[in-house]
């Protein structure tokens, strides 16, 4: 039977994860403002435009607004503030 040895763990220290609740949902999107957030990945703008058209054709009571952050992969508090100020929901994409 081979001897057992003790070794150190090579992994770093992960942060504590703090649970957060999801936002309340409206009962329907009729009459609501939905922001379509272009994540700035290549072709995300084309995807969001097609999504906008889908809503216009299939759910015309939903007002969609396409919006983009100023820079790729950087938080844009002003953009978020606009969405929070007059949006009811958001769809963000596309992550590659």
């Amino acid at each position, binding site marked *: 039977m081979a001897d057992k040895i003790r*070794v150190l763990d*090579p992994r*770093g220290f992960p942060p504590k994860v703090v649970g*957060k609740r*999801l936002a309340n*949902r409206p009962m329907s999107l009729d009459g609501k403002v939905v922001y379509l957030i272009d994540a700035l990945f290549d072709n995300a703008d084309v995807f969001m435009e097609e999504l906008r058209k889908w809503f216009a054709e299939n759910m015309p009571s939903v007002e969609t607004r396409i919006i983009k952050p100023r820079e790729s992969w950087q938080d844009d508090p002003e953009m978020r503030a606009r969405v929070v100020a007059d949006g009811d929901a958001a769809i963000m994409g596309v992550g590659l």
Partner: protein
Amino acid sequence: MGFALALEEQGIPTIPVSTHAFARLAKATARTGGMPTLRNCYVPQPVVGRTASELRAYIEGMDPIEKRPFMQGVIEGLTQPLTDEDLKGATFERERPRFLEPDTEENLHQLFLENHWTDKLPIYLPTEQRVEAMLKGTSQAADKMVGQMRPTAFREAWAFDVEKVAVNAVMAGARPEYLPVILALAASGVSARSSSTTSWAALSIVNGPIRDEIGMNSGIGAMGPYNHANATIGRAYCLTSQNVQGGSVPGDTYMGSVGSIWNYTACFAENEEASPWAPFHVDNGYKPTDSTVSVFFGGWYTQSGFGPRESWKEKFIRCLTATDHYSPPLIVMDPIVARAFDDLGFSKQSLIEWCAENAKMPAKLYWDDQWVTTLLKPKAVAGIEPFAGRWKAAPDEMISIFSPGDINIVVMGGETQGAFKMISGRFRGLGVGTMTKGKEPIVLVDDWR
């Protein structure tokens, strides 16, 4: 994903849409963001390169992960009532005992392999004795925090201390005298295991007296497997990165589609003594007697040439314009090449400026690039130069693809051949996870002796 989490916290129901290849990553990011029930939706991979009608078909088709119509998932995700789990989120801590459970050597080697804690090459197991011996290479306390690392900007950052770096240095086969260099590289906060789909690597250059002190090689075979210090320091930086940042697991914390051979080891020493020019760290404000490490983020391509011959200008232009131009080149020159350019009247800076001035391509080609469009076009549209000027150029207008500050030159090699390489490598300076004080873009090895 960060936007989605933030908007949900701010009371806006949000659907993050990803391609199916990123489902594991999306779910893991939601979980570590405290919202495991974030209502992700998926479309088929790829989105890049698809026509408008093909993307419309994605929207009208099935979510390949959730196995239901994509728009059904979107609408329900935005309107279905919340569950108890939605209301609580998930709080958890992940304990990391200092030691793993004791086991046989054979079983521990298998454990390290299966947990993706290695580069799949044999390692030295980090016993307490070996780690203690390694820690003698620095005067810093074992529990001194070195910094943080993350696989990408979207993922959570993990912290690490001197001992964690020593553990990974043992695994790599490094010697204690190399530890200050390894600590300096780790302190840069730049991960040598970026998760990017593009398969980045971190190439690092060591300058100053430490090179000779620890026996690094900057001569014959400088970038090859011919020196213990070079090889194991680069390997230790890679292993440290993958393990202290929370992993580098394909499909989860590593998404590089093709991968990079530079991810095994890529730490090199400049041949300062044979160069006609000042060393890299002196160009960046350090004293020749300072010992430093500098990290270059790249590894996408390598161009190669010999000379400079009579047609060197055409050769350089071909090499520069053949690069994947989102990633500017680190030009590595054998001393023979550097001295020849010096004889032609070039300083390092004037040669860099020549390269930036003459590397041009039509604007339409410049912008027809996935990463230039994703990452530089927003800056261009926002009016930030030089990108704004490139954006305004007519499609067939020849524009410079690099600024002088994008390009760097380092001298290394053994003078058996007048060789140069242009290697994808943007000088990153300090990464987001660095705790190094000051505004220097390079890390002082001397701080970690």
